[in-house]
């Protein structure tokens, strides 16, 4: 297939790193090689290699339509790839369903809050906890105390204990995002994929979320898509830039911020404006000064 040739092309484009052969697969918690998915003529994801070592804080950025959400779904099992492989702990999970992958340790939150709207915050978490404890087949009414303790613990972890018995419909947008996180954490996943965790949040809510993510156990591996680049560069230890379905660049936050290529992908050629204004400062920016003059 043509995807095979694309794979080598991508690794040439990406910054130099170890080849993604079996030794890397075994050390990485979650990895993929040559992952591709086409929708008709559109190659949404086109030969992506990625390897997340234990405890990674890996961000996935890129302009709209770069294929971030599709890549996420390929990793979680929501979509099947047209080519390529996905490994979890050195095990090939490419052909496994999303439910199976979740049981093996892939947790996720969704771009748009995906909760159980007829239920309270505690009932939402209960579904996640029951699943993790392996009890959801019981046709007899549940034993509450142990379950309740664990639910309270998880709600407290995301600062939602006070909202315990509120229906989800009464929670604010930011609180829904926090609850998403509690659901994903209930099963103690090996790797957690967050799809735009701060989308639509007010600044104060984003701060709270950043603090929550910062406090997550260090052995938990994180991959997150985020449009708030300030947040990305605060939380991530490694950033992968996706453009038109391919990896444009993978590196440290500093490397990505300094890359002209990334600037172009976001803003188009001929205009190098303030993409990374926050900390980078004008001296970091290269290229045409005249583009800035009004």
């Amino acid at each position, binding site marked *: 297939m043509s995807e095979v040739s694309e794979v080598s092309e991508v690794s040439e484009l990406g910054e130099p790193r170890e080849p993604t052969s079996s030794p890397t697969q075994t050390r990485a918690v979650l990895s993929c090689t040559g992952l591709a998915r086409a929708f008709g003529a559109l190659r949404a994801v086109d030969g992506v290699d990625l390897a997340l070592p234990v405890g990674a804080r890996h961000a996935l950025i890129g302009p709209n339509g770069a294929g971030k959400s599709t890549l996420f779904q390929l990793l979680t099992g929501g979509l099947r790839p047209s080519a390529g492989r996905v490994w979890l702990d050195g095990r090939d999970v490419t052909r496994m369903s*999303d439910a199976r992958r*979740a049981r093996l340790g892939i947790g996720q939150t969704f771009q748009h809050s995906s909760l159980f709207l007829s239920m309270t915050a505690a009932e939402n978490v209960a579904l996640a906890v*029951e*699943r993790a404890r392996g009890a959801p087949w019981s046709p007899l*009414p549940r034993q509450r105390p142990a379950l309740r303790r664990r639910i309270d613990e998880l709600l407290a972890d995301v600062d939602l204990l006070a909202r315990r018995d509120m229906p989800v419909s009464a929670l604010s947008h930011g609180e829904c995002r926090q609850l998403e996180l509690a659901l994903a954490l209930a099963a103690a996943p090996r790797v957690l994929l967050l799809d735009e965790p701060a989308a639509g949040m007010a600044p104060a809510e984003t701060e709270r979320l950043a603090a929550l993510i910062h406090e997550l156990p260090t052995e938990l591996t994180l991959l997150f898509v985020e449009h708030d680049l300030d947040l990305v560069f605060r939380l991530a230890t490694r950033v992968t830039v996706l453009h038109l379905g391919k990896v444009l660049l993978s590196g440290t936050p500093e490397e990505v911020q300094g890359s002209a290529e990334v600037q172009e992908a976001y803003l188009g050629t001929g205009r190098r404006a303030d993409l990374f204004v926050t900390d980078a400062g004008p001296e970091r920016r290269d290229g045409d000064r005249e583009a800035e003059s009004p």
Partner: protein
Amino acid sequence: MTARTRRAAVLAALVVLAAAPLVLNDYRSATLARMLVFALTAASLDLLVGVTGLPSLGHGAYFGAGAYAAGWVALHVTHSAPVTLAAALAMGAVVAVVAGSVAVRARGVFFLMLTLSLGEIVEQLAQSWSSVTGGSDGLYGIPPPEIAGIALADTRSFAWYVLAVFVVGMAALRCIVGSPLGATLRGIRDNEARMRALGYRTYHYKLAAFVIAGAIAGLAGALFAGLQRVVSPGDLGFGSSGAMLMAVIIGGEATAWGPCLGAAIVVELRDVLGPSLGGHGNLLLGAVFVAVVFALPGGLARLRRVAG
């Protein structure tokens, strides 16, 4: 309503239902039995429609399969009530396993149409397999069930028998709804993709809901066979399935007693008032259905919540 007052209300309703055959005449007692049979069927359908979010248009198939199984056993094997009930339960479950394993893979309108066509297939089977089902005549002359050798031939004792099975069936359904399994089914109704992301293999749970609902509907079918003494293909076709779905929606889906209330209303309008309206029972039923859908979305059981 607290758990205590709810329990008191259920107990009071049961006392009234148990005492009713003592004061009602034979015709009204038989109607009460009919209502209870239909109520249990509607409640079992609600496990699919209201709790799991799977609107099925073929529930008559499991109900009818149970009725045929009970009728056949009573005619050819034994009159024993426990045996006929067990046969009907098993037959309802078996038909639901077969139909469910196909239907549950589909979603939305495809699920709806699949359940409808599977129901029609079962009806056609009852028409064609005459050596067992009696063809279009159905099974007739079904003897009344016996408990410990005593035939439940009179209307009053049969009504109590129906009430007892109704209570057991409803208790089982309420128990499941309040259990982790019930919570799982509600989770699937609310957000199946999220359930899968949490690691739930939703197909298995939906199939389980299908089988439980089919088994309880089969149980109700056995009561129906004993009550009518006749089972014909029409009892498991769309007419029967549609009325069940109407009962659920009129009463209120995903409510504890709404489907039972809806079932009682459907029986009253269609079978009791219908004949005195020159056979226009279904017209009246349709009008009531439309009125409820527009005036009380969520069904009669949610009236209290709307008022309060």
